[in-house]
């Protein structure tokens, strides 16, 4: 895809300068937007609004963490959105039917991981293109969610479900905790375990790893399973936010997550990138949408602006040689 290398010619002046040069476009975007919005709208830099943005970004960030790992293995997972919807529906139906929360949550996690595992097996062992595998899974997950609910929202959830969204622990809302925990777990997995080393290595060296007899395929399946399980975690917050589980709630989220990952400086090729960038990418997406709303930009223009910003940020990264 990136056939034409513009080679990074970074003059190594100092570490700080180098770090600045390696920051993904999303970081600059985030900084620029924050400055701009602080001047343009007095509401932006209020505690209330910043909490608001953090809460809005939580689900996107959690799904994007899993997506980052998948993309690091040169894969893609289009099914994460509908799988999130399905997990929410399963959790919702079980608690409404009176099952204990632990079982409902466990079942949802299992379903998320099962979809991931199916995707992973087809990609890793059957060597089917990830795009197609997960597109197929997209349709199947969506159908299951629709059939289970007959297209309706699952409502009448017990009060405690709302704690996933409204609960506050040590002064910080639960979704932000959840995002932080997911980040920490993913970070440790990615940078301090064999699983992480394989994730990076599969991107770019997959065939060599397989030929050398290492269990790359197995770890590739784990990556997809982990992404599916994270989608289930996202679904709990989403369900609590709506106080209802809606079968199509996640559709479209997968594309936002991919955009957040790429904006965060992870490349589709050769296992380049990382999880920290994804946080910045997700925040940039969140702040952009929040800012456009606060500034009162009309919906029609917002749509065009989102597209232009995504293309500009990623083009700049590519031209600076970061996405190569």
């Amino acid at each position, binding site marked *: 895809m990136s056939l034409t290398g513009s080679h990074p010619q970074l003059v190594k002046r100092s570490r700080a300068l180098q770090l600045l040069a390696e920051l993904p476009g999303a970081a600059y975007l985030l900084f620029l937007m924050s400055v701009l919005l602080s001047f343009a*709208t007095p*509401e932006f830099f*209020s*505690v*209330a*609004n910043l909490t*608001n943005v953090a*809460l*809005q970004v939580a689900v996107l960030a959690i799904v994007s963490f899993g997506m980052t790992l998948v993309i690091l293995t040169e894969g893609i997972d289009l099914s994460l959105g509908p799988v999130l919807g399905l997990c929410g529906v399963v959790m919702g139906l079980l608690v409404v039917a009176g099952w204990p929360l632990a079982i409902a949550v466990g079942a949802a996690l299992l379903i998320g991981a099962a979809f991931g595992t199916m995707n992973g097996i087809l990609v890793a062992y059957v060597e089917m293109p990830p795009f197609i595998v997960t597109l197929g899974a997209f349709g199947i997950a969506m159908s299951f969610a*629709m059939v289970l609910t*007959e*297209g*309706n*929202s699952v*409502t009448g959830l017990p009060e405690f479900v*709302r704690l996933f*969204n409204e609960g506050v622990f040590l002064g910080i809302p639960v979704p932000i905790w959840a995002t932080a925990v997911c980040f920490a777990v993913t970070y440790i997995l990615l940078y301090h375990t064999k699983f992480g080393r394989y994730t990076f290595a599969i991107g770019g060296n997959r065939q060599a790893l397989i030929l050398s007899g290492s269990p790359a395929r197995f770890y590739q399946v784990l990556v997809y399973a982990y992404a599916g399980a994270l989608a289930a975690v996202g679904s709990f917050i*989403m369900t609590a*936010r*709506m*106080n*209802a589980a*809606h*079968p*199509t*709630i996640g559709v*479209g*989220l997968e594309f936002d997550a991919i955009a957040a990952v790429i904006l965060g400086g992870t490349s589709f090729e050769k296992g380049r990138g990382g999880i920290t960038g994804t946080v910045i990418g997700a925040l940039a997406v969140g702040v952009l*949408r*929040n800012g456009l*709303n*606060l500034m*009162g930009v*009309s*919906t*029609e223009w*917002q*749509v065009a602006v*989102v597209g232009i910003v995504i293309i500009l940020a990623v083009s700049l990264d590519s031209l600076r040689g970061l996405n190569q």
Partner: protein
Amino acid sequence: MKISRRQFTAGTMVASAAAALGTFPFRSAIAQGGKPTIAFFVKNVTNPFWKACRIGAEKAAKELDVNLEVVAPTKPDNIEEQTRLVEDWIVKKPDAFVFVPVDYKALVPSIQKANEAGIPIINYNNKMTGIEKVTFIGSDDALFEYEICKYLFNSMGGKGKVVHIDGVPAAITAQMRKQGFERAVKEFPGIEVLASQPGQYRRLPAAQVFENLMQRFPEIDAVVSANDDMAVGIVEALHAAGRGGQTKVVGIDGIPDAIQAIAEGKMFATVDFSGHDQAYLGVQAAVRHLKGEKVPQEILLPVFIIDKSNVDKVARTPEERPVPSWDKVVGKA
């Protein structure tokens, strides 16, 4: 209106905390004699029904000197995005929300947050429960679908073969309309329902589904479509297949294309279910509420059937449509 104590305390706490922080300057513009800001929500910027709503709201805003902000998700009818929009607008704290939920259940928690922030909610088009609202303005989907079906079935002499094209199955409006359809069918034993399939409320999917159904059923006496956009698509499909004129098609909404098709004799009838009027009255209600006037808890608009006999008297576009009189409608309700 009942406010639970918990919500009330939460509301006051948020309000006082915000006031203390100075992040939410209370600016009830009317009290200060300025121009009030009203956030007017629609479900999308793609369907003409919501355009008609917007025009109705803009007419009211102009008359009443209101600063109207139209708020719509970038992805049509997207629940998650509308939730974020509500949250962002709570931060901006307009004087009132004139609100329609893209899902009447899933948006309840967000609107409860708006309640806690003390923003008055005027709910229009799709009724929400479990929230504090100044009023609901709309009409009963099940009832007017029932009315137009009854009108259609009577015109067929109470017997014949009917195809029902549903909207988006998950949408409350589609479910209510289907209920209305089923109620009417029960009352006419001579009516045979050949098939009921969703057309997603959109022209192209509805036309394609109907083209496939035409293959299955060589004889269809009437089609009940859950909205006009689909009905017009079905009319096109019938004419393309050379079966125009044999099948009576009815829709709902009264969009310009449907009125045109009725005038040309291609379509049988539609129900005028005016988003324009609902939105106009919604903004009126908001301003009256802000001025301290009493607004009834529910304003149900009368609906009427448009067919060949009265089509010439109907305004074709929302721009041309006369605005409803508040006193007349509310007096009636």
